């Protein structure tokens, strides 16, 4: 993978909404932690959804 979704822990509210739009089931709300696995295809739907802007693609300033 040459990309990586990054979770800004200072912003994340652990609502799990991002996992609800992930088309490849790569995201898990593990109580107070968002876990992203290698199935991620970098579609950025989770970034578009996030109400607080806690998600970004590594190397980008989304």
């Amino acid at each position, binding site marked *: 993978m040459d990309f990586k979704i990054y979770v800004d822990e200072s912003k994340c*509210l652990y609502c*799990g909404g991002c996992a*609800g739009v992930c088309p490849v*089931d790569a*995201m898990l709300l593990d*109580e107070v932690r968002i876990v992203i696995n290698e199935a991620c295809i970098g579609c950025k739907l989770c970034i578009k*959804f996030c*109400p607080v802007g806690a998600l970004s693609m590594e190397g980008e300033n989304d």
Partner: protein
Amino acid sequence: MIDVLIVGAGPAGSVMAKEMASRGFETLVVEKRQEIGAPKRCAEGVSGHGFEKLGIKPHPLSIARKIKGAILYAPSGKAVTMEGHGMEGFVLERKVFEKDLASQAIKAGAKYMVKSLAIGMEKHGNAWRVRVRTIEGIKEIEAKLVIGADGVESKVGKWAGLKTVNRITDYHSGIQFEMAGVNASYDYIHLFFGREVAPLGYAWIFPKAFSANVGLGILEKAAKMRAYDYLKKFIEEHEEIFKNAQPIEINAGGVPVAHFTKMVADGVMLVGDAAQLVNPIHGGGITRAIHSSIMAAEVAEKALKSGDLSKEKLQEYEKMWEAEYGEKTKKLMKLRSFLEKLEDKDFELLADILQGEDIYQLTQAKLSVLIKKLITKPSLLGLAKKYLMD
């Protein structure tokens, strides 16, 4: 092997647990969070009428505030009040409400595990073997029937091969502060509309005992910034309401305002948000979640007794849902697609012609009210076209 394993202890999960345990089935609920009911992902409002229909009487401690109705605000601030018969409701304290529902299920004989995350499941013969990560290590639980009450991020549905992914076009991005010191009437919920307020959604103030839930939901396709930024702007622009208000909690969440129809697989049923069962107009999900569990339990009982837990057998639940909500949801989706076309000036026109009672009828999917009003004046012809052209 147990009869029913329920993943998720929200309202859908706990009502399912109560329904199944009280019918004598061995029922276990696993909840990934360390506390049932928290953190909430919800504005906590429910209609009194909706609860009455389902025979649900929330415990007095679960009710943070009884409300008389709703006040709707067009972008200019013009207000329309909805009150009277059928429009009363409650703002719940979900931390209490959900623990009450769990307590009722436990009284009926259900077992519960908290801080217990379901991490996968496989079919073994006629049973599902579910792996659960608990505080005491990984446990494997065999169940005849697995209920996915695991919310918008449902894994159970995906493990069973159902397409439970929310489409971003039908999935509101929600954000909320619970605030103390909010200066608004605590007898009503307040809803604010406008492209600049909350694109393709609305902002709300839901009063509680000492505080109020202040939030909004937006659709990403029409948004220019984050939901959080819209909420900050909303609070700044209503100084009269929020001058002395401070946050005591922050919440977020996705609201699945779609119409999902595949809710079962072999030995698996989805209830509540996991099946995207939310009112597509206002985004409320508690009543539908509870109703889905009541229906699912009826079908599950027959299936467990007959020993046939096939998809075909469980599909009766989908049919029941469709019979009760299918037509209504379709109409509300049509209403939503109309509302999505509205510009701010259209909201002003609607605020002029619609009374509170009309809006109530609309939320009940009685759409003829709208077209009758729209054809009364030539100036509304543009709006009528927007409604009719789909």
